[in-house]
Structures are given as C-alpha cells and as structure tokens.
C-alpha cells in the first residue's frame, strides 16, 4: 500500500517537474511547480517528517510560489525571445546540472542522512524538533532571524525607490474641520462702496 502510494507520488512529482520546464505558458509552469512541491510534501510525509512536510506546503506552496505567480503573471505570454538563447546557455546549464547531481550524491551518502533514525522516533515530531531547535541549535536559529531581517531590508530597498506618492492619512482625514476646507467670503455686491472686499 505504502509503496504503491510512494510510486504514484513519485510519478506525479517527476511528471510535474518535467512540465515545469517544458510547458510554454509561465503561469502553467508555476502551477506545475505547486503540484511538484505538493507531491514532494507527500513524499516527505511518507518519511514521517510530518512538521517539515506541512511546513513545505505552508511556506513554499502558500507563500513563495504566490510571489512566483505574481512575477510570472506580469510577464508576456510570448516567450519566443527567451528561447533564442537556449543553445548559448546550454553548456553553462549542463555544468550547473552536473554540479547539482554531484552535490546531491554527496549529501545522500552522508552519514547524517540516515533515514532509519528519523523513522525510529515516535510521538509528535513537531515537539521533537522544538526541543532541539531552540536549545541545541539556538545559534543557527538566531542567525535565521538576522537573515530574515536582511531580507526585509533588501526587499524594501530594491522595490521602494520612488518618493513621490500620494498618501492618505486617515487620522488627518478624520481630524479635519470645516474651517480647514472652507473659507467664507462675502460676495454681496456693495455698489455704494465701489467694489467687494474679496476678489
């Protein structure tokens, strides 16, 4: 049963990943990426990495890919110019792909990557993670917050460049008095005096 589900998930994952890079419409590609992340969450779940699997959906599917979709939605559908560079970038692409394969093999062969250890645990693995993350691994955890803060600052400096903006300050709008907006002027014609006091 489990192996059947695993193979179904693996097949969907491979299919979705292939579609991401072959489909022409970028929005569809982004949606296939959603499917890919979702099925890999399923596979992580089968490794009993409950918290990580659901976090993958929460963070990547729920947040990162929404940004992807925003970016991709603004692109032109017509991607012909992008394809022209394909052969030019091919050697570089192959080098990168080869590097990734080597890295993956190195990681998967590492002794820390022993899956049986993870499966031996039972009970809530969110709790287990919590016990370690905020005590033993507190230093990397704090570094994560620094990185996130840098990301906030970077995102703002990159996107918010313009200074000229029309802002509405609701507090000021509420506080406004009739005297600030309306000036009463006397417009009665005063023929005897020659002219009106206001022009």
């Amino acid at each position, binding site marked *: 049963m*489990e192996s059947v*589900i695993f193979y179904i998930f693996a097949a969907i994952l491979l299919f979705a990943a292939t579609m991401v890079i072959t489909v022409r419409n970028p929005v569809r590609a982004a949606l296939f990426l959603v499917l890919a992340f979702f099925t890999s969450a*399923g596979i992580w*779940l*089968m490794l*009993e990495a*409950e*918290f990580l699997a659901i*976090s993958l959906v*929460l*963070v990547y599917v*729920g*947040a*990162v890919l*929404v*940004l992807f979709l*925003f*970016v991709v*939605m*603004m692109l032109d*559908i017509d991607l012909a110019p992008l394809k022209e560079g394909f052969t030019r970038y091919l050697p570089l692409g192959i080098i990168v792909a080869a590097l990734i394969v080597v890295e993956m093999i190195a990681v998967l062969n590492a002794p820390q990557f022993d899956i049986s250890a993870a499966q031996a645990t*039972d009970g*809530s693995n*969110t*709790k287990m*993670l*919590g*016990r370690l*993350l*905020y*005590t033993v691994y*507190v230093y990397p*955890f*704090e570094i*994560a*917050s*620094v990185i*996130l*803060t840098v*990301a*906030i*600052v970077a*995102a*703002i400096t990159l*996107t*918010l460049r313009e200074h000229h*903006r*029309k*802002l*509405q300050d609701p507090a000021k709008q509420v506080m406004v008095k009739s005297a600030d907006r309306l000036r009463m002027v006397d417009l009665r014609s005063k023929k005897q005096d020659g002219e009106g006091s206001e022009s």
Partner: protein
Amino acid sequence: MLENYLPILLFIIIGIGFGVLPLLAGFVLGPRHPDSEKRSAYECGFEPFEDAHMKFDVRYYLVAILFIIFDLEIAFLFPWAIVLDEIGVFGLLAMFLFLGILVVGFIYEWKKGALEWE
C-alpha cells in the same frame, strides 16, 4: 502516523472531485450558445481593446515578499509554542531575541513606508 494521513489524501481527492463533477454537470445540463458578444470580456460596455494583463504596482510584490518572511517566522513559532513548557526560560529568551531582531526589520519596514497604501 501514516494511517492518519490516508483519510486526508482521500479527502483531497474527493475535494477535487467536488470541484470537477459540478463543472461537468454544468456542461452536460447547461445550454451552449456562445456568441462573440457573450464571450467578450466584461468591460462596462466598452470593447475590450487590449490584453488585460497589465503591469501592476511593485508594492504587490513587496507584500508577497514580506509575507514569505513573516510566514517563515510563523513556521518557526509553531514548534516553539508547543514545547515552551519544556524549554523554559532559555527557549523563551531565544525566541524573544529572534522576534526582537525581526521587529527591528518590521520597524524599518514601517518607517520606510513599505506598509503605506494609497
């Protein structure tokens, strides 16, 4: 643990089914008389004269980026919240430092006007 996720898998499949089946039923039972006026995009009586996909304010991207960061923060808060009793004062201070650093970012964001919309 895994046996608890089988109903969820089934539920997702059935949920998708509840999206697909009514659509199919709508096709089978509904009439189909398309004409060019009916199929044109709604635009308050105008002829739609160009592609509706336009460039939009960069602030939408900013919100999406900030959302990712805060979402990660929530992902960090969840395991912390449920083991708080076990990790005690040390865990509490560790998270306060974490949140403190991020609050600096949040204040920066606020002061820079990244949260202002017009």
